[in-house]
């Protein structure tokens, strides 16, 4: 086993060697511009792009023509929200989204609000981080043009009832955008069955290269239109100009192909490792709390709060395991995770959270190591924690007058 161990597969994933192999020729001998219509170099590149487009579309049950390539999910989210708003603003300017969306959606919504271009409703989530479809229905007004709700959350892995939301959107003739960055390739995604009109996702979360993503844009029932946010050569059916990064797209296609072929065996394998990690840690350590939905959760996700221990110190104690924390000390803003706060997790437990993200290349041996290390470090830090000492003495920490600073 090689250290450090990578258990942060929600942030990014290592590229699958099979993906790299597929990409390599397109850097050197097959370097053509996919938009060059007059020579073999261009044709070859275009053919590779169209093949990849098909593989990507197949994974989400879409038509290849409905895939618009972007630089990643952040750009896709921006294009979806801004492009739809600009196209349909005569109809209305109201957007419905949820409070636990990725920053790429939330900050885009906030920027549209700040410019006075949109009014936005941020729906609450339940204690598991799930959006209630009834809340979506009730929030719709005659000015609503777009609902944007994520498929699976990047911190807690909770999977939203997207198909139900899609049905409501359809019934009310409101467009439905779904940020499916964490879900695509990990769980079955079907834009038809789920009633999704626009969907963002990216390659590097599914063992593909960084720097390429896609926006699915529905062509039929209804035909979704967008105002492009990048002007230029009119690539991608006029929705996103810019020379296509052929090698990245080829890699994206290969990554989707592999996910499609292996998901049925890979997801249960990863979930079994995750379940083992969860059970071992939570059985050994009292007052450890699961964040996120107990069952409706991504197979590789495990987010736990360890009471009386601060998250960043936990990560520091386990520096040979790459993890992420909702602790303020790990964020630039010094605020603890807004996702955990939206679930109603107390600030102190939000500071104490650790996110494990398991993926394709993790092994049982690595999980054994992580179990041992987590228990050891949490125990050591609790010995060092004045809060744990007080709790053990029977002092109710909530009754203490703390001096906030």
């Amino acid at each position, binding site marked *: 086993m090689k250290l450090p161990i990578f258990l942060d597969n929600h942030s990014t994933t290592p590229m699958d060697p099979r993906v790299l192999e597929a990409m390599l020729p397109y850097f050197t001998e097959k370097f053509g511009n996919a938009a060059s219509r007059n020579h073999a170099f261009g044709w070859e590149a275009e053919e590779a792009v169209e093949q990849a487009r098909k593989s990507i579309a197949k994974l989400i049950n879409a038509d290849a023509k409905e895939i618009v390539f972007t630089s990643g999910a952040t750009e896709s989210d921006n294009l979806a929200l801004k492009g739809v708003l600009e196209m349909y603003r005569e109809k209305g300017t109201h957007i419905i989204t949820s409070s636990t969306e990725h920053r790429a959606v939330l900050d885009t919504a906030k920027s549209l609000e700040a410019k006075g271009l949109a009014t936005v409703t941020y729906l609450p989530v339940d204690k598991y981080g799930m959006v209630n479809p009834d809340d979506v229905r009730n929030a719709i007004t005659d000015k609503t043009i777009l609902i944007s709700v994520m498929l699976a959350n990047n911190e807690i892995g909770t999977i939203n009832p997207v198909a139900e939301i899609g049905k409501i959107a359809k019934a009310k003739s409101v467009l439905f955008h779904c940020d499916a960055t964490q879900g695509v390739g990990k769980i079955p995604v079907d834009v038809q069955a789920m009633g999704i009109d626009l969907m963002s996702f990216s390659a590097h979360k599914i063992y593909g290269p960084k720097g390429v993503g896609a926006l699915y844009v529905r062509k039929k029932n209804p035909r979704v239109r967008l105002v492009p946010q990048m002007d230029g050569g009119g690539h991608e059916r006029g929705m996103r100009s810019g020379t296509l990064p052929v090698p990245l797209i080829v890699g994206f296609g290969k990554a989707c192909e592999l996910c499609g072929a292996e998901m049925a065996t890979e997801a249960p394998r990863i979930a079994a490792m995750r379940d083992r990690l969860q059970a071992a840690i939570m059985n050994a350590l009292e007052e450890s709390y699961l964040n996120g939905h107990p069952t409706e959760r991504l197979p590789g996700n495990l987010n736990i709060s360890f009471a*009386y*221990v*601060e998250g*960043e*110190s936990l990560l*520091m*104690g386990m520096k040979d395991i790459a993890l992420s924390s909702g*602790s*303020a*000390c790990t964020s630039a803003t*010094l605020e*603890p995770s807004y996702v955990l706060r939206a679930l109603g997790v*107390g*600030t*102190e437990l939000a*500071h104490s959270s650790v996110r494990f993200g398991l993926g394709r290349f993790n092994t049982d041996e690595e999980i054994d190591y992580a179990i041992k290390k987590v228990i050891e470090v949490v125990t050591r830090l609790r*010995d*060092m*924690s*004045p*809060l*744990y*000492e007080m709790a053990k003495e029977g002092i109710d*920490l909530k009754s203490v007058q*703390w*001096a*906030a*600073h």
Partner: protein
Amino acid sequence: MAYSDKVVDHFNNPRNMGSFNKDEEGVGTGMVGAPECGDVMKLQIKVQNDRIVDAKFKTFGCGSAIASSSLATEWLKGKTLEEAEQIKNTDIVQELNLPPVKIHCSVLAEDAIKAALADYQKKAGSKTGTGSAQ
């Protein structure tokens, strides 16, 4: 964020981690911070003849907070009460090479020292006759 070697050393080998009985004579206890803010420090001193003969800490917080309080106990030992008053958060920042986002950890450590000293003075003052032998 990369930690300085000194922060890592204090984090891995905390000095004087533990507790004194806070009711014991000569012990001053300072507890500062709040769980919602992500750091709470408990710093204790044991005083004999106006000199700190021992110090202990327990900290809930990030690595820099743990290192700041560990360092503080090291510095406190052997100092007179007057000398202990002079410890500044900037000294801690310098010694541990703390980045700007971690300066609040050093401030908290200074506050904890002040709180422990104040607690000791309060306890000593309430027991008239003791502690004023000279």
